[in-house]
């Protein structure tokens, strides 16, 4: 590895952040932090899309990242509405306690 950033640097950074997000999803039990970890994973995927786009001199990766951002925004809105709803019924947002579909 060299000091100057190359494609491999960006991809390994992306893999590291994705791994951190995955461990967060597996370890944490607070639903809000779970969603934050999912956002981290989506961001790291965006980073590798953009890195590949730049080193292929192709803009398609930017379009993919753009759509991922739109989907992430929609997902965050719905997910936090669900968190709010669960909190009203259970007085807590620990995912271990969410075991039933009905309320």
């Amino acid at each position, binding site marked *: 590895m060299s000091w100057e950033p190359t494609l491999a640097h960006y991809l390994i*950074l992306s893999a590291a952040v994705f791994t951190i997000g995955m461990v967060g999803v597996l370890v944490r039990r607070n639903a*809000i932090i779970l969603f934050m970890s999912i956002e981290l994973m989506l961001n790291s995927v965006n980073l590798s899309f953009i890195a590949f786009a730049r080193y*292929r001199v192709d803009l398609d990766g930017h379009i993919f990242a753009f759509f991922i951002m739109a989907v992430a925004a929609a997902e*965050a809105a719905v997910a936090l509405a669900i968190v709010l709803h669960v909190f009203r019924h259970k007085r807590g947002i620990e995912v271990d306690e969410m075991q039933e579909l009905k309320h």
Partner: protein
Amino acid sequence: MGVEPLFFWIFAIGAIVTSLSVVVVRNPLYCALALVVDFFFFAGLYVLLSAHFLAVVQVLVYGGAIMVLFLFIIMLLNLRGDELGQMRFQLHTALAITAGVVLFFIAGGAILSATAPMDGEPPVEGTLVVQDDGSEVRVQEVRTSIPGLYLALDEQTLEEKYLEQIASWERGTSRPSDGKYPRFNPERTFEVPPSMQFDPEAASVVPGRSGLYGTFQPISALLVNRFVVPFELTALLLLAAIIGAVIIAKRRVT
């Protein structure tokens, strides 16, 4: 060596540190604040990757909209201390961390082997290459074995290659797939909004064409040509998300 590597390492280390603190810190509010900083580091990385438009969108959408949602929910729920995520050390925590480390090493190994420089090409370490006559030449591009994929590509070469691509699409001599690329003409003057360029002789900012790759002109040309159907479907998705969020979060749907 320019300042770009320095900024890359600042942003990269900052992104990893803030991502770790999102996962490790107990208080969700501090997690959210670490996540904001993380999004800004990512925006900086996008700028380094010449994705100017996406860097702006990242700050607006993630740093603005999504973070406001997270902070709003955290403060609305007013989580007490006993409800904060506790990091009790358990078997499944250890297993999850092990799985993460294993995944990282598998992915890293795959990346390193896939992006190894092609045989006969100068190695990545030699971005400064000594020629036969003793002079040093900076290598602008290092190819991989995958066609069209470069390992290292500096900013100027990127712009040149992108202009070459556009020119060949304009001439119709290069057509990767029919209808794949819009007929984007960089020479066409845009009335609104002109990109700004600094004119050193006049010592003022004049309308002009600065960097093309990753600016919003070619991206918008792609969005409303080749990707127009997904673009419109995004509007539908956002509408569905709005309605869904309202219905789920409402106390009683009448």
